């Protein structure tokens, strides 16, 4: 399709251009130029004929607005060489015919008869004023009533708490990367919040605690979404009405508003996503001035935003994917441009690798470095991490540890798996259920510190208490046959020829025996893998394996999550395949033995890459572990675009202050219709171009905007929405909002283009002018009015529920599934 259309264009260009600067202008150059409709300080004189033709038909007032579509001179200005400039000149005529009336009008305005300078200044002022207005309205709506309600709402309980952890420098564990929470913590710190509020559960009153800094910060970032969307659409469509419509849709969407007003990760995430999108679009439109200052700055800004998006949530991967696809297609075009030498293409490639891969990676790693440096006190997340990791945290019992160094019989220990995020060997009084091997006590691994993680090392053949002071201390050595007795239940670690519950090829591990008396299946040979410290077993340092004496299998964890009967802890098995994998190697972490002297020992300090890798393993494991519980009512991805159901942020009863996260149905359903319309009109346009239909210049320009600009946005929507269908983890309504931003931008581009096409179709009648303006205006007003109706959802409502005719929201419960 691309080829066909560009061939067509070349043909046309060749016939209309008076003197192409270089004889054999390759087709692709035109094609690329055209993508971006760049602005041109000095259009070639050949355009004036087009300008003159249309001059009469464009009323003066409109022209002023339309001309704001041009790039600011600073960006459009020429750092580029002469060769480039001549090419740009050619491209200018091309752009003019593509954008048709708008640019033609511009050209007309710029013809020597006009007072060029003053009008340009006027126009620039107007452009900035409009942007300022959009930004102002956005900020006003987001900051209005920000302090209400003065209690913890919904997930503020998590993210507020995590912000406090940063202020208190307490280590914690979360499934998301740390940037978002770090920024929240920083905002809190700067605004004088002292980190003492507990954020225990939604509904807790903030009282004297200063929470406004954190909310204000989120609202601040959330407010930028609208100017960003405005600028993105403006750049993609070169049309102010489209940009305004997008801005209105997002400003007046109650969902975006609600989500921006609380201490959540979403406004931060969406800020970075939109920033990445905007800078990507901007850098695309400087494609004709490669390696210029704006080009570099937009490119590196894209990279920085990508790092930010990924640093807040892994959902940032989708925007990375989008930028990646855009970059690949960009490079593909450059590579096919035979006028560029391979060296130039190589430079392009290197620049992108530097800015879009290396830079984000460095930043992302830096975020983690800060995270790990700041959180240096022991906290609730310790157990998720390896012993060596924990030794860094002050307050942890491994920090400057003072424990007996070598294991002796009678020692009480915790045993930790060396594979990341598996946890401690654990047992509890519950039995394996019927049908799962033998009905004996469960043995699992568990990530949290707990009394049930404690085991006593005993000799296999005697049951006497080795802590009896009359016995001499006897150290455990490599190759000894031992018994591990569970301290709380006095059952022995046991294995036998029964299938393990999940990994059927392995043997089951259970707790067996009464008060330490069991059978020969309780005997394990302890082996040290790294024997450079001698035959004794050293706390933390020694990597040990436990080999079952009777069956010869080795104790390990499969890492699989047990069903509900196993409390969703991880499976422990005895592996008959003696492979040297980390999952069957353990180390001793806590060690209590009153008969041995405590000595302080330096623990292995993990290197930074190890810490980074470990944090990611733990996060991914945590994310996969977020499974919906049985019978829990969960939100499904198909609910989201139809605005099927909201999320209750605060309050449930008549008397409460209720905030309900729900999209403005008018906006959302308009978006939904727009996607369908876009697919329809887009495919009609694409087929028409593929058939080689001769479209009038203006229609062709609009079609291109629809296909290219709209295509980018549709891709964004698809990438931010459809992957959720494949996710096994629990999903919530608010996951849709990044996709919703793209869908709203698409709506803006679509309606503006369609209305322009309508206006063009009606060109003969007097209505022509009005159709576009009227259409856009009615959409703007409609959205604003719907916001007036639904604003209590976001700003909070008190009083009877919507079923009640007395309620302020009476009659607005359009779907029965909305409960406000």
């Amino acid at each position: 399709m691309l080829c066909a259309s560009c061939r067509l264009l070349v043909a046309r260009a060749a016939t209309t251009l008076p003197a192409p600067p270089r004889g054999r202008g390759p087709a692709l150059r035109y094609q690329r130029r055209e993508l971006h409709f760049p602005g041109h300080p000095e259009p070639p004189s050949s355009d004036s004929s087009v300008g003159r033709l249309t001059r009469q038909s464009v009323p003066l007032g409109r022209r002023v607005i339309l001309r704001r579509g041009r790039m600011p001179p600073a960006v459009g200005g020429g750092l580029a060489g002469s060769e480039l400039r001549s090419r740009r000149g050619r491209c200018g005529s091309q752009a003019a015919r593509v954008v048709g009336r708008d640019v033609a009008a511009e050209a007309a305005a710029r013809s020597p008869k006009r007072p060029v300078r003053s009008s340009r200044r006027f126009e620039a002022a107007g452009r900035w004023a409009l942007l300022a207005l959009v930004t102002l309205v956005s900020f006003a709506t987001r900051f209005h009533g920000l302090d209400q309600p003065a209690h913890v709402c919904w997930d503020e309980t998590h993210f507020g708490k995590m912000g406090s952890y940063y202020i208190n420098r307490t280590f914690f564990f979360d499934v998301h990367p740390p940037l978002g929470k770090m920024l929240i913590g920083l905002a809190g710190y700067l605004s004088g919040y002292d980190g003492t509020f507990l954020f225990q559960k939604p509904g807790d009153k903030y009282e004297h605690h200063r929470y406004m800094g954190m909310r204000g910060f989120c609202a601040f970032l959330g407010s930028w979404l609208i100017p960003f969307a405005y600028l993105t659409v403006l750049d993609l469509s070169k049309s102010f009405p489209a940009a305004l419509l997008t801005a209105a849709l997002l400003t007046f969407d109650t969902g975006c508003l609600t989500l921006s007003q609380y201490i959540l990760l979403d406004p931060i995430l969406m800020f970075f996503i939109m920033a990445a999108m905007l800078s990507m679009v901007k850098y695309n439109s400087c494609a004709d001035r490669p390696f210029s200052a704006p080009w570099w700055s937009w490119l590196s800004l894209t990279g920085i935003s990508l790092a930010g998006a990924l640093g807040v949530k892994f959902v940032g991967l989708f925007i990375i994917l989008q930028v990646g696809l855009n970059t690949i297609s960009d490079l593909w075009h450059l590579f096919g441009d035979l006028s560029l030498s391979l060296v130039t293409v190589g430079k392009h490639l290197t620049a992108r690798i530097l800015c879009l891969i290396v830079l984000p990676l460095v930043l992302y790693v830096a975020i983690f470095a800060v995270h790990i440096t700041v959180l240096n006190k022991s906290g609730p997340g310790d157990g998720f991490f390896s012993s060596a990791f924990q030794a860094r945290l002050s307050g942890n019992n491994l920090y400057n540890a003072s424990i007996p160094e070598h294991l002796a019989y009678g020692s009480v220990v915790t045993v930790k798996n060396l594979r990341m995020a598996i946890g401690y060997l654990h047992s509890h009084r519950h039995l394996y259920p019927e049908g799962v091997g033998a009905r004996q006590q469960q043995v699992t691994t568990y990530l949290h510190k707990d009394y049930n993680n404690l085991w006593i090392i005993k000799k296999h053949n005697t049951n006497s208490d080795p802590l009896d002071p009359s016995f001499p201390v006897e150290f455990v050595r490599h190759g000894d046959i031992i018994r591990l007795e569970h301290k709380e239940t006095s059952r022995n670690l046991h294995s036998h020829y029964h299938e393990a519950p999940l990994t059927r090829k392995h043997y089951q591990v259970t707790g067996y025996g009464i008060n330490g008396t069991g059978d020969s299946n309780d005997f394990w040979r302890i082996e040290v893998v790294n024997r450079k410290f001698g035959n004794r077993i050293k706390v933390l340092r020694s990597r040990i394996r436990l080999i079952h004496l009777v069956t010869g299998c080795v104790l390990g964890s499969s890492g699989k999550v047990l069903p509900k009967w196993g409390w969703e802890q991880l499976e422990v098995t005895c592996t008959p395949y003696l492979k040297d994998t980390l999952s069957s190697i353990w180390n001793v972490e806590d060690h209590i033995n009153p008969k041995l002297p405590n000595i302080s020992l330096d623990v292995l300090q993990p290197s930074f890459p190890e810490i980074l890798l470990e944090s990611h393993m733990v996060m991914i494991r945590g994310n996969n572990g977020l499974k919906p519980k049985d019978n829990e009512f969960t939100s499904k991805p198909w609910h989201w675009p139809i605005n099927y159901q909201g999320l209750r942020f605060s309050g449930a009863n008549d008397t409460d202050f209720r905030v309900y996260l729900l999209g403005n149905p008018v906006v959302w359903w308009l978006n939904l219709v727009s996607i369908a319309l876009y697919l329809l009109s887009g495919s009609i346009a694409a087929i028409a171009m593929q058939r080689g239909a001769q479209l009038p210049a203006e229609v062709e320009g609009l079609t291109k905007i629809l296909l290219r600009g709209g295509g980018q946005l549709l891709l964004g929507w698809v990438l931010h929405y459809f992957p959720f269908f494949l996710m096994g983890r629990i999903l919530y309504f608010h996951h849709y909002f990044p996709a919703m931003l793209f869908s709203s931008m698409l709506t803006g581009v679509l309606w503006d283009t369609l209305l322009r096409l309508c206006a063009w179709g009606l060109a003969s009648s007097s209505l022509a002018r009005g159709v576009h303006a009227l259409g856009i205006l009615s959409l703007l007003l409609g959205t604003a009015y719907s916001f007036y109706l639904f604003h209590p959802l976001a700003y909070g409502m008190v009083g009877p529920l919507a079923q009640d005719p007395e309620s302020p929201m009476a009659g607005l419960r359009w779907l029965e599934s909305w409960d406000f």
Partner: protein
Amino acid sequence: MLGVLKRPIVVTADINLNVVALTGVGLLSRLWQLSYPRAVVFDEVYYGQYISFYMKRIFFLDDSGPPFGHMLLALGGYLGGFDGNFLWNRIGAEYSSNVPVWSLRLLPALAGALSVPMAYQIVSELHFSHSAAMGAALLMLIENALITQSRLMLLESLLIFFNLLAVLSYLKFFNSQKHSPFSLHWWSWLMLTGVACSCAVGIKYMGVFTYLLVLGVAAFHAWHLIGDQTLSNGRVFSHLLARAVALLGVPVILYLLLFYVHLMLLYRSGPHDQIMSSAFQASLEGGLARITQGQPLEVAFGSQVTLRSVFGKPLPCWLHSHQSTYPMIYDNGRGSSHQQQVTCYPFKDVNNWWIVKDPGRHQLVVNSPLRPVRHGDVVQLVHGMTARLLNTHDVAAPLSPHAQEVSCYIDYNISMPAQNLWRLDIVNRESDRDVWKTILSEVRFVHVNTSAVLKLSGAHLPDWGFRQLEIVGEKLSRGHHGSMVWNVEEHRYGKSQEQRERELELHSPTEVDISRNLSFMARFSELQWRMLTLRTEDSEHRYSSTPLQWVTLDTSIAYWLHPKTSAQIHLLGNVVIWASASLATAAYTLLFFWYLLRRRRNVCDLPEDAWQHWALAGALCIGGWALNYLPFFLMEKTLFLYHYLPALTFQILLLPMVLQHVSDYLCRSQLQRSLLSALVIAWFSTACHVSNMLRPLTYGDRPLSPSELQALRWKDSWDILIRKH
């Protein structure tokens, strides 16, 4: 007239002896000793059950895939005169004499045998040489895993057959596109493509991947057709329409037809009835239909009903109450109303009966004239055996404290008044005056005082509640959810006013008689929906594996072991073929991108038509492999080595084409070419040798000594069974 007589009648037969020969050896390799072993081998134990169900016409539900494959297997049984009387209970069980093993295994074996000549045809339709085509067919022929899989009562070989058929017929269609569009030839291949696709999907959902492949390639070609400006608009439109009909319309219709036949065949009730809705069950012969036959349709005041939860998760169950009360204090210290328990009970029981009562009257019998209950009416529900009224109040439910407790009200003379009025809300009503109908109506009970909705929470009560399911009043009505919806399953008009008589009446079966029919589309959509949403307990299997282990053949499956000797059938691939097929895939990918980049810089290494053929071969084979393989990484179900076989066939097809390409375009001199041929011959002989070595495990015909078996265990992860004597 005479002209006909003047010239002789000539039949020109154009027989490719290659194809004939390949078919012959294919049949030989797959049909040889087909009825050995005369015992249940691996998954035959699973598919055999369904064959028996077909033979006995008993309804079943298998969530693993659509029923076409099962039907084909059952066709074999039907042809062999199988009566369905065999207990498929364990692998290795001897077949009794009434089981026609040969004809049961015949269809999969035929499909496997025909895949061999089809591989030949596909490669030659892709415009590669006859020797390449021959190579592909021979590789298919000697691939041990394919042989094993097609000689048993399993579905993979049927799936592979239809996959290849779809690709082949699309290629035939595409190749006739240029010179004879809209000819009979063109039409028949196009239609066959659609038919083969729907058959593949009908055998296993996996077939969708190949269907998507064909659709993708067809869409790409159609897009070029649109761009072809030598064709008129009308011509393009008719081309597109023909493709849409054949590739979208025909498969949908066939898929529906498949289910139609399936439901026609299975008309008796069976063990899986419980999973289906009451209406569906009533459409089967026997089972619920026997009970509900002739029930009065309209529920009236005074009706005796059982109420079934429509949601049916975690278990299908009926609204139930019994004498026991909620414990005064729960384990966690919260209190209850100490009134009579209301639960959901997964078994039929006399305590499931409720009487619909008009709050304004005292009567518990149906008056004449009948007063049907309509949408919006306020009713009371009286528990039949205890005569207490269904009630809910502002007390936290035992396990879901955010919801209200539902009880049967007991008047303790305390400050807790009865709140036993419920408004009937017919969910699937057509108008607001709809009458509450047995089985058909799906209703919600909305509590009048608190507007809570009667809901099955899905949690199991502890011992004091006899592990029955918890019923709550959900106050915050979160939209329509299946767990709040109920339907009347059993129904009769109450006649006895006295409690004692009524109890007797409740114990007696319902008697009146009318039958009820459900439309095919309703039954189809319900069945399809259940198949897609049913979650069977995912248990890990001893021989299950992960997709990563397939490419390197790091896993195997023991299918069958002779009861006395060590003869065994083991699913193992030919290592040489698997490794070289993966290498060929990698080589193709590298070469393809190399050519692509160079073409972009206007350096054409290949002539245009060779490039086209090369690209199409890659799109089909690499695309087929990737589509049939990569999705498994996202699946959470238990996976086995045989899931990889469809992907493997695409890789095998590619292998000789890559070799031919190397010889044609990369070998610069005759010497290099001869050298390559010699290498290929050596490699192929190795493959044959390996295939022959593994043959005892493929056919299971020869017992091997432990040392021989140990010698065959080339990888530690192969679980070859060795008897310890």
